[in-house]
């Protein structure tokens, strides 16, 4: 493993601690709580606990639709796929072996259900076709032009969001802007940002469910997050 974070965990973490809103410790707590809850949830589901099943649907339904949309043409068909996948989940719960997380298992059922639809509803655009066109994270005009002094450095700084009032970023209006922007993303970018940043999946889980490489996963996530940041910036500066 060549990643700097693995070799020197503190390196990747200290800036995050300083500027981040979610520290690595909080992320760890979130994932361990999820794992503990999941074991408990599975037992309750197998015992026929309706509340547990309702919670399961409420937790994963949105992500399932986002995953299905990558494979079928319309949102309406994606909703049908999610519904069909739930029926398969209900039937398969007793057979589920805890080799993967419950969520990974459910999302793979969605992928298989969507692919199984085949024919006119299926799409054939592979994930690997990320597009050759450059999609810079930030408008190149925001940087000083090549050849001059300080080429590639900011022309004008981005905003200092830490100076905004607490509710500016977390208010309903801002969340609506974020939701609209994610909705408008290309399907492949939408599914990756939905899985990573909304559902809280790991990079490995995304690659596993969608059968894409780590590199492709990061390119899609990077493009999606960069567009979302830009949309939030327009909204907050506007």
């Amino acid at each position: 493993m060549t990643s700097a974070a693995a070799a020197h965990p503190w390196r990747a973490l200290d800036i995050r601690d300083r500027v981040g809103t979610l520290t690595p410790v909080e992320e760890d707590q979130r994932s361990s709580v999820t794992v503990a809850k999941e074991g408990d949830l599975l037992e309750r589901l197998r015992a026929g606990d309706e509340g547990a099943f309702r919670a399961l649907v409420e937790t994963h339904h949105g992500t399932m639709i986002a995953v299905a949309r990558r494979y079928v043409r319309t949102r309406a068909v994606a909703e049908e796929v999610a519904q069909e996948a739930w029926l398969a989940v209900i039937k398969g719960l007793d057979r589920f072996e805890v080799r993967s997380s419950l969520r990974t298992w459910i999302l793979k059922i969605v992928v298989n259900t969507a692919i199984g639809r085949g024919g006119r509803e299926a799409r054939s655009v592979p994930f690997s076709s990320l597009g050759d066109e450059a999609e810079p994270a930030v408008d190149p005009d925001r940087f000083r032009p090549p050849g001059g002094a300080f080429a590639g450095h900011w022309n004008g700084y981005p905003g200092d969001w830490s100076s905004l009032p607490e509710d500016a970023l977390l208010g309903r209006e801002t969340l609506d802007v974020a939701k609209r922007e994610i909705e408008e993303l290309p399907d492949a970018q939408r599914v990756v940002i939905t899985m990573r940043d909304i559902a809280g999946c790991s990079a490995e889980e995304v690659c596993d469910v969608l059968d894409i490489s780590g590199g492709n996963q990061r390119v899609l996530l990077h493009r999606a997050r960069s567009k979302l940041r830009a949309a939030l910036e327009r909204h907050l500066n506007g």
Partner: protein
Amino acid sequence: MAESRDHITCQELVEQVTDYLDGALSIEETELLEQHVNFCEGCDWYLDEMRRTIATGSRLREVHVPDKVLEPLLTEFKERHRS
């Protein structure tokens, strides 16, 4: 990296942020990025914006599922466990 470099530009940094936050940069690339952020207020703010953008995503988790979706599933779930 093809050759050893002693700095990156802001324009290069914004393209590395996702890899950085995922711990996917090499040790050398990580050092260059962090050195840059320590001296560049604009990129410090940019990194902060990205962290807050990610945090915004986690607030979009929807828990409401329409009854017309949920009810038939609950019925099926109950049927399955009655037998």
